[in-house]
């Protein structure tokens, strides 16, 4: 399995709407494209993409309160469970399907990834890296389910139900025959180019079907 080569760039990544992964996603998305954001929250990213990149933006969100806020800001979002709604879409209905920091919360992540690259010509997956060294240290040191800045929840009330690392995603991509077009690793606003599985807090992958 060839390790993905991270995209080079300035050592610090700017922030968009307070998040560096959003900045990267917004750089990836080409203007005028059709975008589906899975777990779109209150639609901030989609609103930004619609206004600044002229994309046709759609969103799915499971929280009724967040969907309301997304619609109120003009985003075509609907209430739904991403595990359930993706099979409804025809192949390549979108240019990009985005899943930002939600893969670890889905019930069937493999199914979600497969559906993303079917429904979208490309998929953008951002996820928190469970291989980040403080996570490893916390488990080793305390012998308990790790609680870190990145994974702040107690095991019993965490929304995260499937933990994965950068290596895990690389391996999955290889097994599923996905082409990793680009990948980015972040620690806070810092770009990580060395030992990402150990040093990255968040990974952002742009993948497609072969």
């Amino acid at each position: 399995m060839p390790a993905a080569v991270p995209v080079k760039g300035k050592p610090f990544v700017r922030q968009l709407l307070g998040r560096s992964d959003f900045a990267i996603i917004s750089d990836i998305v080409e203007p005028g494209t059709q975008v589906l954001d899975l777990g779109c929250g209150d639609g901030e990213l989609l609103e930004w993409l619609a206004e600044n990149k002229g994309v046709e933006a759609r969103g799915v969100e499971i929280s009724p309160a967040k969907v309301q806020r997304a619609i109120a800001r003009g985003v075509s979002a609907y209430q739904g469970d991403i595990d359930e709604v993706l099979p409804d879409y025809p192949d390549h209905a979108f240019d990009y399907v985005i899943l930002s920091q939600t893969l670890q919360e889905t019930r069937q992540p493999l199914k979600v990834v497969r559906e993303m690259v079917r429904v979208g010509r490309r998929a953008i997956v951002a996820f928190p890296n469970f291989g980040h060294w403080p996570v490893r240290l916390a488990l080793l040191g305390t012998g308990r389910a790790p609680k870190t800045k990145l994974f702040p929840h107690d095991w019993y009330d965490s929304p995260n139900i499937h933990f994965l690392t950068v290596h895990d995603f690389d391996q999955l991509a290889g097994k599923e025959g996905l082409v990793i077009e680009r990948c980015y690793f972040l620690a806070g606003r810092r770009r990580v180019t060395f030992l990402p599985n150990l040093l990255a807090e968040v990974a952002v992958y742009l993948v497609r079907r072969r």
Partner: protein
Amino acid sequence: MTVDTQAVEFDSISLESGAKLTPVSIAYETYGALNASKSNAILILHAFSGDAHAAGISHETGKPGWWDNTIGPGKAFDTDKYFVICSNVLGGCQGTTGPASINPQTGCPYGMSFPVITIGDMVRLQTMLVDHLGIERLLAVAGGSMGGMQALEWAVSYPDRVIAAIPIATTARHSPQQIAFNEVGRQAIMADPDWCEGNYYSGKPPGRGLAIARMIGHITYMSDESMREKFGRRLREKEKFGFDFSVDFEVESYLRYRGSQFVTRFDANSYLYITKAEDYFDLTNPTGSLTAAFQKVTSRFLVISFSSDWLYPSYQSEEIVRVLRRANRNVAYCELPSNYGHDAFLVDVAEQSDVIRGFLASTCKENI
């Protein structure tokens, strides 16, 4: 803002049943101003017992419109920005031709000789009104319950004329439960000896039957929770049970009051015809598939349902959303939390207004 109901008469309208109505008039009101490019018009579609008086204060009656909390300056349908139209439906009894209208052939009210009408017929008459107002394309069509059915019908039958559709608390096809409640209402009217096969216009109207029909309706518009909150088991102006069949409970008093009020403003035959139109509503006709029905749809959609609405439950809205998603159409959907049952779209409007406002603003940005 005081408003007057206006009316326009057309030579005739051909109906889905094959019958023809000659002539036909439609009552309507407008609020706000049509812009020069005629691109800011929104058609509001009323529910079963509504009328053309949707907003403002009626010049004639002094009463506010049925959706005055949602239509007006600065409100969800902002009349400072949009030109809002609302008309009374075909078959109604508030100014548009219906069974109580005079049949020019006989000089008497139509009664049961009025042809059976459909939601599609109501919408066709509305297209004639919109033509009359010189409007090519509507920025939006919006309505709850039967109004939502009309909004869906517009989007499906006149895709080129509707930029956005807002069907609220509605369905793409009337369910057996909805038909059942309508049938009980109709039977109550027809069982009233004053109904006289619909020929009561020169005498006493079937007030008892119509009131019972309305009482049933009101039960279905509320929720178990809203009834517990509103009435509980409270007694009406008494400390103890009366041990008779006069009014004991608040809820009885409320239903009787609603029933008796309704009789003063609504025609029993209109009740029969309009509920029949609802029951015939099924967008899967004639192809048998909702997906096929939505094939030609180009409008953007905002679908809204309410958590406690058991008459038009959320699954019916979700069915519409799923079909639109499969066709890869532009759809926003939310189930709003409310205890008010089906009535929520009329009374619990704060969150509904937020989503409508945002949806319309972004529709405008893309289209005006």
